[in-house]
């Protein structure tokens, strides 16, 4: 059955990408295209007393200039889909009107015949700013001072308490309570392809097409139709190749609506490609929480309760999911452990910065970091090995489904198994012995671990703002080629390959007979998108069930022609067998028929159904389309559509172990070994899973050691380019030792869980735990990220 699933299959999307022949938004040209550039606020908080566009309008090549006033009544506000009790939602206009609220806030749009002219004209627009006091630090902004949205009276967007159990009693019953303040710094997702939008309006047909680098073409279409005021069925969103997203393109942005609206005004195609500077200023950021965790435990290490009081820095406005991200942190505060009582108290705070939103992990890395750092602090308090504290509190593999005090039911797991495997690969005992020797020799060596659980396959619709299902249509064309249309539009994950693997096995056809189509609302049925490690678990399952439905119909047709009961047919490797033929010699069969996977070449053959003992599903597709020999009351054609609604999330898990050495002279951390044992349920393509794990771990290394979006006290963005915002480089990364355990998910028939975010969730605390372990002889219990050499050096020297 499994010819492709589980195999290291090379990606079918790669040839166009390695030859430079793929099309990202900026690679698409259209006749008479106009280029858009934006005037963006230079200040974090300023009243706009006027915008003088007169000089710009006289400049060569300039076709139009639009200001906030021009569009305020024409284009609807940037939407927020998160619903929380008593949430304050500011009016987020696509261009700033009376006030600019963050550096990079768009104020005016210039349209010109070429991009150089558009960019020149931006400098000719004069904005009359009146600087206002700023709210930058999240804790200060929560307490008072400058108010960003006057109508709300303060900067508190919401307060929320979540969790189950009596936290006060739980902490009271503890022998020890450890408390630690932790900062999750602000990060920039930095997809290598910045955002980009191309919009083309046909006035005659009244049709608008928007090409956008997005993770959610259908949701984007719905929202843009509302913002622009165009019927949804006259708007087509196409996502061509998308150069990475990491959550930053799981959004609806001002520029997307504005470009669509401008194209309608001018009746010409318009394009805007985000510069990297704009990308760091005005594409969503991630993380940005400052909180304090309290954990109660017994003398033997048993946890009694966990409380996390946190300020979430939301930025100036809500983007699509901004206020909801910290709620995911609250859901995952039980980590991989039995904790009888858990409480999170979150305060969402407006600041004069770009909005935070979903960045790879989206609230879950924060939770894992809190829990896994706390486990090490507990271990230090009790003078226990970090491994033993974790073992002590794991649920056993037999305790699943496992209910947490955050209200979740973990689907399946074997945390002990992943831990044991990681310990084995790392040679944990030897590592500890090496560490003792290193310390005796005056060297700083640290070993850190993290046993994580993540929440994936988002998710049941009840738990999602706009539907948590996914869709698929599977069609076998008359020539036997298989077309799959998925709503889970990818941006580098490789669904064209992994979905084709699943489909090829299920249909028994050649992988190369399958084309997976995605990211075009004009072609693909409504879908949700790729985020939250959901594409395979939810979208793949939708496809699997669609195929099973298609096969029910194919079997009916086969039974009719082969003159037997459908239930009596055997199906193997793409071929239906009449009961008697199942035992027949295979040579006879293969001489008779077109080999599986080879659709007939040239003109369509007349199906020869006389005296057949077997039929391939690809031959049945032709019969179904010619429709002369169908059973009574059978619809012609061979396709099926299915919308899959999952009953639960999935909960992948694993253990990561990190070994660091710290240079005493420079304070520099070197990761010398990194071991990751991940369990993402059933694996469709190990090559792709490895790639996801590697990428996530390295992003976590970026968070742990290098990356931080820094605004100064005036709210100026001082990490506004890749010259200042430090992404990990190849030379800074160690060889990653990856392995897996495989615990299938009972939530979907594929048994898959999801793997896209495992690295950013599991790795960050392992790295920081290793650094803290290395520095423990100096009495260090905690260090905030990014752990810069200067911070470490100061500890060593004082």
């Amino acid at each position, binding site marked *: 059955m499994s010819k492709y699933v589980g195999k290291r299959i090379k990606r079918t999307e790669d*040839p166009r990408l390695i030859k430079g022949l793929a099309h990202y938004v*900026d690679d698409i040209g259209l006749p008479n295209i106009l280029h858009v550039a934006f005037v963006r606020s230079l200040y974090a908080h300023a009243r706009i007393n006027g915008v003088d566009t007169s000089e710009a309008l006289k400049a060569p090549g300039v076709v139009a200039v639009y200001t906030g006033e021009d569009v305020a009544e024409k284009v609807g506000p940037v939407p927020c889909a998160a619903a929380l009790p008593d949430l304050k939602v500011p009016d987020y206009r696509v261009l700033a009107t009376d006030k600019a609220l963050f550096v990079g806030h768009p104020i005016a749009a210039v349209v010109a015949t070429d991009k*150089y002219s558009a960019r020149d004209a931006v400098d000719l627009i004069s904005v009359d700013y009146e600087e206002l006091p700023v709210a930058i630090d999240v804790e200060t902004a929560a307490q008072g001072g400058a108010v960003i949205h006057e109508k709300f009276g303060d900067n508190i967007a919401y307060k929320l308490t979540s969790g189950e159990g009596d936290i006060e009693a739980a902490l009271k019953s503890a022998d020890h309570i450890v408390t630690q303040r932790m900062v999750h710094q602000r990060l920039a997702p930095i*997809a290598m392809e910045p955002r980009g939008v191309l919009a083309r309006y046909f006035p005659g047909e009244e049709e608008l097409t928007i090409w956008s680098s997005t993770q959610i073409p259908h949701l984007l279409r719905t929202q843009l139709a509302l913002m622009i005021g165009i019927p949804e069925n006259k708007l087509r969103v196409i996502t061509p190749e998308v150069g990475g997203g990491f959550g930053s393109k799981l959004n609806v942005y001002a520029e997307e609506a504005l470009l669509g609206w401008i194209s309608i005004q001018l009746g010409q195609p318009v394009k805007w490609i985000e510069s990297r500077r704009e990308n760091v200023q005005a594409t969503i950021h991630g993380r940005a929480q400052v909180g304090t965790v309290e954990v109660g435990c017994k003398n033997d290490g048993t946890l009694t309760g966990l409380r996390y009081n946190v300020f979430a820095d939301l930025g100036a406005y809500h983007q699509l999911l901004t206020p909801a991200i910290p709620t995911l942190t609250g859901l995952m505060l039980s980590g991989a452990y039995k904790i009888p009582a858990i409480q999170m108290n979150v305060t969402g705070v407006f600041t004069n910065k770009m909005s935070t939103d979903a960045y790879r992990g989206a609230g879950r890395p924060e939770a894992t970091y809190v829990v896994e750092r706390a486990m090490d602090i507990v271990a230090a308090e009790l003078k226990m090995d970090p491994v033993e504290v974790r073992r002590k509190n794991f649920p056993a593999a037999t305790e699943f489904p496992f209910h947490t005090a955050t209200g979740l039911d973990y689907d399946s797991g074997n945390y002990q198994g992943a831990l044991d495997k990681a310990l084995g690969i790392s040679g944990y005992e030897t590592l500890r012995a090496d560490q003792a020797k290193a310390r005796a020799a005056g060297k700083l060596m640290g070993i850190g671990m993290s046993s994580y659980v993540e929440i994936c396959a988002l998710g049941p619709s009840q738990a999602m703002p706009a539907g948590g299902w996914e869709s698929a249509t599977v069609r076998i064309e008359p020539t036997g080629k298989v077309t799959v249309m998925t709503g889970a539009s990818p*941006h580098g994950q490789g669904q064209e390959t992994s979905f084709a693997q699943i489909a090829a096995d299920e249909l028994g056809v050649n992988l190369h007979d399958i084309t997976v189509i995605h990211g075009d609302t004009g072609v693909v049925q409504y879908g949700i998108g790729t985020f939250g490690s959901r594409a395979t678990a939810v979208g793949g399952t939708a496809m699997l069930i669609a195929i099973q439905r298609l096969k029910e119909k194919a079997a009916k047709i086969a039974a009719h022609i082969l003159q037997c009961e459908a239930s009596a047919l055997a199906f193997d490797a793409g071929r239906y067998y009449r009961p008697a033929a199942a035992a027949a010699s295979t040579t006879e069969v293969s001489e008779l028929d077109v080999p599986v996977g080879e659709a007939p070449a040239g003109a369509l053959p007349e199906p020869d159904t006389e005296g057949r003992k077997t039929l391939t599903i690809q031959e049945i597709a032709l019969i179904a389309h010619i429709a002369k020999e169908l059973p009574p009351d059978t619809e012609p054609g061979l396709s099926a559509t299915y919308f899959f609604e999952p009953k639960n999330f999935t909960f992948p898990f694993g253990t990561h172990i990190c070994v660091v050495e710290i240079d005493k002279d420079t304070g520099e951390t070197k990761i010398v070994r990194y071991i990751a044992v991940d369990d993402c349920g059933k694996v469709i393509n190990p090559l792709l899973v490895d790639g996801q794990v590697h990428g996530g771990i390295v992003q976590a290394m970026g968070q742990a050691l290098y990356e931080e979006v820094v605004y100064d006290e005036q709210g100026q963005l001082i990490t506004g380019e890749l010259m200042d915002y430090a992404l990990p480089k190849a030379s800074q990364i160690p060889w990653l030792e990856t392995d897996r355990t495989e615990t299938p998910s009972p939530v979907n028939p594929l048994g898959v869980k999801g793997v896209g975010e495992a690295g950013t969730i599991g790795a960050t605390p392992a790295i920081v735990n290793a650094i803290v372990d290395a520095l423990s002889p100096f009495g260090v219990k905690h260090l905030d990220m990014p752990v810069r050499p200067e911070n470490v050096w100061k500890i060593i020297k004082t």
Partner: protein
Amino acid sequence: MKQAISINVNGIDHTADVEPRLLLVHYLRDVLSLTGTHIGCETSICGACTVMIDGQAVKSCTMFAVQADGARITTIEGLATNGELHPVQEGFWEKHGLQCGYCTPGMIIAGAQLLDRNADPSRAEIRHGLEGNLCRCTGYQHIVEAVEFAAKKAAGG
């Protein structure tokens, strides 16, 4: 005032009158429609725009087209010969050295340059040689393996 330039790109001679400030990457992408060369940062950090100029891997986002007057340039579109993939391209496919693919053309050019200079690099040398190219998807490990594959392949292994 426009200036006349003459550049050989992927074996074809091109002449054009261009603004002195036109960036080479815009000349390649917008004038010649060779959109395989990408723009990722505009500051010479990310390397998505890397092309081969007279045998040297160069970031085309911080070079003017007029500076390339008289040069021979190879872009990702010109790397394969007679329809046969360059060993580094093959390595990227074989070893899953790409996910979103955006950094890939620049990364492949940098990898090819690296092997031109050192036919049998160690993993550390490969990582050092790719320092000027950023990838946000792969974590670099499969890219290192892709270059190793190419080195072996080029050596006839």
